């Protein structure tokens, strides 16, 4: 509106705005600083995580030795006879994660292959968001479904405990399928058309082109998606705390109840351990281990995915 009114004396207004440049400059600088501060919040978050977790973990290791934590095979911090061997928790995490990935890798990859290589674009445009809905369902809902639907169903076939690694792992696998699927899909889609056409020119079938050309070419993207899926499974909490139970033990029997690192953390925080108590510190010690494991997995995934990007750009 102002512009229209000011058109007749545009020269003097232009002069005005030139004079105002100094204050504009300051405003621009201030805004630049404010926006930088917003971005810096993310760096502060990381510092916060590292400082707080490792401060409490340091306190933990002043009372419990590294050897007790990493060499003992019993985890009973809440009992009178206290043991702090973290291996049962790691075992539970690995067992449920392995089951989850046994589901998520084939389902995620076949979704990605079907959507990229077979489905009509219009069908894919409906099916892809439909599959990704799986990732939008709150994880506590998967816990409910695992405990009250999958477990009773499976108990008709296998002699499962009420809380067991199998149901929780299966549900977690379905939940992680879109993670594996959509990153693999992007990787498969970015394999150049020319590679497929070259393969067809040599007289091979579509399926052979997929297995011998497309998948190997997209391999690093697929591996990155799988590693990211593992990281999600390791950090997932609600499904395992509800359906896998709270029995820290070293076992490969998926019919038994196990306890994961995250399930232990949820269990101990529900109990209102006072700050400074040893129980409170175990929460942070396990949290530190979880953080380091997922951080390592995320970094590996990021690194593998970036190597792949350079290949075709």
């Amino acid at each position: 509106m102002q512009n229209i009114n000011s058109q007749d004396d545009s020269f003097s207004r232009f002069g005005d705005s030139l004079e105002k440049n100094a204050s504009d400059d300051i405003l621009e600088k201030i805004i630049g600083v404010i926006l930088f501060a917003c971005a810096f919040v993310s760096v502060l978050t990381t510092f916060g995580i590292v400082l707080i977790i490792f401060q409490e973990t340091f306190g933990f290791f002043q009372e419990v030795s590294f050897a007790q934590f990493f060499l003992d095979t019993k985890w009973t911090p809440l009992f009178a006879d206290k043991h702090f061997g973290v291996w049962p928790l790691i075992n539970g995490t690995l067992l449920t994660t392995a089951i989850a990935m046994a589901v998520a890798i084939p389902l995620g990859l076949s979704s990605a292959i079907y959507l990229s290589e077979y489905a009509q674009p219009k069908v894919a445009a409906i099916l892809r968001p439909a599959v990704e809905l799986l990732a939008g369902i709150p994880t506590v809902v998967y816990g409910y479904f695992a405990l009250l639907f999958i477990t009773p169903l499976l108990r008709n076939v296998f002699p499962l405990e009420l809380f067991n690694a199998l149901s929780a792992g299966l549900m977690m696998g379905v939940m992680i399928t879109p993670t594996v699927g959509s990153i693999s899909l992007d990787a498969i889609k970015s394999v150049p058309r020319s590679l497929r056409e070259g393969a067809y020119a040599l007289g091979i079938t579509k399926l052979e082109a997929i297995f011998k050309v497309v998948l190997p070419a997209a391999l690093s993207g697929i591996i990155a998606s799988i590693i990211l899926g593992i990281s999600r499974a390791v950090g997932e909490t609600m499904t395992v705390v509800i359906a896998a139970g709270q029995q820290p033990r070293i076992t490969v029997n998926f019919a038994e109840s196990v306890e994961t690192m995250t399930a232990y953390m949820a269990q101990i925080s529900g109990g209102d351990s006072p700050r400074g108590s040893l129980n409170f510190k175990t929460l942070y010690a396990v949290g530190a281990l979880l953080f380091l494991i997922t951080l390592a997995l995320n970094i590996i995934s990021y690194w593998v995915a970036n190597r792949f990007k350079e290949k075709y750009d």
Partner: protein
Amino acid sequence: MATTYQRDDYLDSTAEFTDNIDKREALGKVFEILFLLGLLVGLFVLALLLFDILRDGLGRFLTPDFLTETPSRFPDEGGILPAIISSIILGIVVILVTVPIGVGAALYLEEYAPRNWWTAIIEINISNLAGVPSIVYGLLGLGVFNYLLGFGPALISGALTLSLLSLPVIIVTAREAIRAVPNSLRYASYGLGATKWKTISSHVIPYAVPGILTGVIISISRAIGDAASLIVVGAVGFLTFNPGLFQRFMALPIQIYSYITRPEPGFANAAAATIIALLLLILALNGVAIYIRQRFTIH
């Protein structure tokens, strides 16, 4: 190499090739069906899950007091009002905190940030934060908001924890929306003598609004469905009043968890009914997102 073949050898191998091709194509068909089945398994489980929850929870959900009363120790009585109010307040605070900071960070990274090692650190840092498990954010919230700032296990601690959890997702999606704004728009604005901030505030942001809002709503739905971080911060499973910012609080997922872990039989139905309420809330949010995207997209 090809020149060393005898001509009839070549013919022979072609014949073999054609014989084989039917089998290989058939195998291809089999695998196409397998891939499709792999895709459909997930959708089938989703349908089964929704069916199971509706079957278990609809009866309880449709009782008149379920949405309007405070929880009761009996599974067939009382309601989930404190949990609904908590979840809505949590969502509002998360929006108020993360939208300005997240969009600000995205604007900085897309429009202002120099290409140097420092910016690279911020970027890698954000993508790493997006992969940190929710329960670890709970530890951060417990340390910073409950103890360092002294809020205790109050709604504000939970809300700020969820805000930090949502921030990376909002930054990533807002960046994509801002990156999608055509450069011609920026040049036109600069050409008229506008400063950088004027260009951004009057051209870049309005153009990017639909994309940004979509990202915001996706991450708010995640935050509202998240339970693990709130358990660590100290959300409770039973509350007889509607919480304020500095009081103890609940949340719909926490209510669900609390119902599931009770042994009496009727609570499973109460949990399923609460799940219906949570899914409806998330569905409503996504409906808003779709509406906004269609209403405000500049064609």
